[in-house]
């Protein structure tokens, strides 16, 4: 089969590789009908995710048709159309039983590596480094899905692939980010990052009752989408002082909650940004926390800073004093996608949202290398790339 393989920073190749096989009794094999590049794939593309090996197959947003099931798979059958969450969940451990799906105890075969670095390991992830299990991803014609009865949900309605694909990650991720904000009527929510997760966070914040949502970015096309499609007020950080703007827009209160939908590769302006770029280049810090700092400083007293953006290592000069003084709540972590997938599909069926609005580029799997490049440089008004295996 053809698959998108990682060979190093900025080096993506589409190669012919062996077809996946059933390895464990709860596995299923999917023929992928549609897959996407996630913003978090760009962290891998740019070499910021440790534990990658040359030849690893990428991709954790995919859907398709079941073509083979292991002997202990009961709910899925050949021919079922399913969308698969990016976290691999066993369904049996303490964390799965309490709906904390992304913290699953039993699906990372390399848990020992993360035990060393983080003290514990969460769920295995598709196509997201050997630290997260080394599972082959779904940017390929076929993919092996472990514990196929647990995470994947059947799509037996007439929604298109493009309308349901994002239930795999970014829609639940944006939704959980907003849910973590514990939004009350009249709340103002600020969202850093108008990429796909940011867009879904804006939409979800409104769904959950936010009065106003303010979105921050510097890419014109993304700000336009946030304003025109997602109906947010927008601030361009390249031309405006974000903290002053937020202070003004909320008449001195600050946003009730702040969402960092950017993560470890935050861009910024001025001396602070130069400081983080330098420290990261010298390996003195692994992640650039510019957005997190702003979110903490901007957030209203007693508010929540919700972090769907990915962080991997260590950050410097985070104003924990401000967070403490203002009594902030910080919520973060990989999305417990299976908790939200069915509910969010209902919202799509009820026409509350059509998740395909974030798609800017449609291409073939064969063009993955160019697609990563365009998405990474945010040129050509690129917000989201979906790829169809030929």
């Amino acid at each position: 089969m053809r698959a998108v393989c990682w060979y190093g920073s900025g080096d993506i190749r589409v190669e012919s590789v062996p077809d996946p096989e059933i390895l464990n009794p709860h596995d299923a094999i999917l023929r992928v009908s549609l897959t996407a590049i996630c913003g978090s794939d760009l962290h891998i593309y740019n070499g910021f995710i440790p534990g990658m090996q040359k030849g690893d197959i990428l991709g954790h947003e995919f859907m398709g048709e079941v073509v083979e099931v292991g002997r202990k798979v009961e709910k899925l059958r050949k021919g079922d159309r399913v969308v698969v969450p990016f976290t691999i969940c066993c369904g049996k451990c303490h964390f799965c039983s309490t709906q904390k799906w992304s913290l699953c105890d039993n699906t990372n075969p390399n848990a020992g590596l993360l035990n060393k670095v983080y003290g514990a390991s969460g769920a295995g992830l598709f196509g997201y480094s050997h630290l997260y299990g080394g599972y082959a991803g779904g940017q390929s014609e076929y993919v092996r899905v472990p514990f196929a009865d647990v995470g994947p949900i059947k799509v037996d309605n007439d929604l298109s692939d493009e309308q349901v694909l994002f239930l795999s990650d970014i829609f639940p991720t944006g939704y959980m980010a907003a849910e973590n904000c514990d939004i009350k009527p009249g709340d103002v929510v600020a969202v850093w990052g108008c990429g796909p997760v940011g867009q879904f966070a804006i939409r979800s914040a409104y769904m959950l009752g936010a009065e106003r949502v303010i979105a921050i970015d510097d890419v014109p096309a993304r700000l336009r989408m946030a304003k025109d499609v997602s109906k947010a007020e927008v601030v361009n950080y390249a031309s405006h002082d974000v903290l002053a703007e937020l202070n003004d827009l909320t008449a001195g209160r600050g946003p009730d909650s702040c969402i960092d939908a950017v993560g470890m590769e935050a861009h910024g302006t001025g001396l602070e940004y130069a400081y983080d770029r330098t420290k990261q280049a010298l390996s003195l810090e692994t992640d650039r926390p510019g957005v997190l700092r702003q979110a903490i400083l901007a957030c209203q007293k007693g508010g929540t800073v919700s972090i769907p953006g990915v962080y991997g290592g260590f950050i410097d000069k985070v104003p924990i004093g401000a967070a403490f003084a203002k009594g902030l709540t910080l919520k973060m972590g990989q999305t417990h996608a299976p908790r939200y997938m069915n509910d969010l599909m209902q919202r799509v069926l009820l026409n509350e949202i059509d998740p395909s609005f974030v798609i800017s580029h449609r291409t073939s799997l064969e063009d993955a290398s160019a697609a990563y490049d365009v998405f990474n440089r945010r040129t050509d008004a690129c917000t989201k790339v979906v790829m169809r295996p030929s």
Partner: protein
Amino acid sequence: MQVLRPTVPYQNLHSIERWFSVIGGLAIAASGLGKNPLSCTLRMLAGAGLVHRGLTGQCEMYRVLGLRTAPSTATLPYELGIRARAAVTIAQPRSEVFAFLRQFENLPRVMRHLKSVEPMPRGRSHWVAEGPAGFEVQWDAEIINEIPDKLVAWKSLPGSDVDQAGSLRFCDAPGSRGTEVRVEMQYNPPAGVIGAYVARLFGREPEQEIAADLQRLRQFLETGEVASTESQSRGGSEAGKRMRRTVEEVIA
């Protein structure tokens, strides 16, 4: 991993080595006669040290390195070797976890470096494991204590490649979280403490390996399979290679 060193002096030299130590010490001391005063003093001191080592049968250097050449009368590696411990919580009833682990033949399913365990008569069993650098290590073990659903303790029998002893303890986890399993092991690595540190350099840290084995145990007991990505499809020249090792194959 904790390196144990004897706190009370005890004889760690074999009788032949003690004789060599005495004779060699005398020879070095004698060679100092007639040399210049500095050389004479140094040779006398070194010789006296060796003679003392031989007469007492105690070598300080061996003690620090965790080595011994004296034949051991105790089969328990008391006050010598490496101690390692690890623990896990498994969302299964205590009786089931105990029953699975008490059946030692089950262990190679979840313990990566264990090749086989064969039961023998009178509560004994024969164990084969993959040691550092691919060497095979074998030992016979016997159960020295057993309290159903609570504890199993074992020790290796004389003639084993690695002298070792260990225990598994079981108790109920709070809040209906299942069973807490604690493993404690003590063993004498073949090459002493240095061997243990060299093994660690090559990524064989005993506590981490036991912890990883316990996580595989939890995977198997909670889900019925051990998570694996070995032999998956991948790009590059290795693509054709498959190192398939599923749970069923391991069981078979």
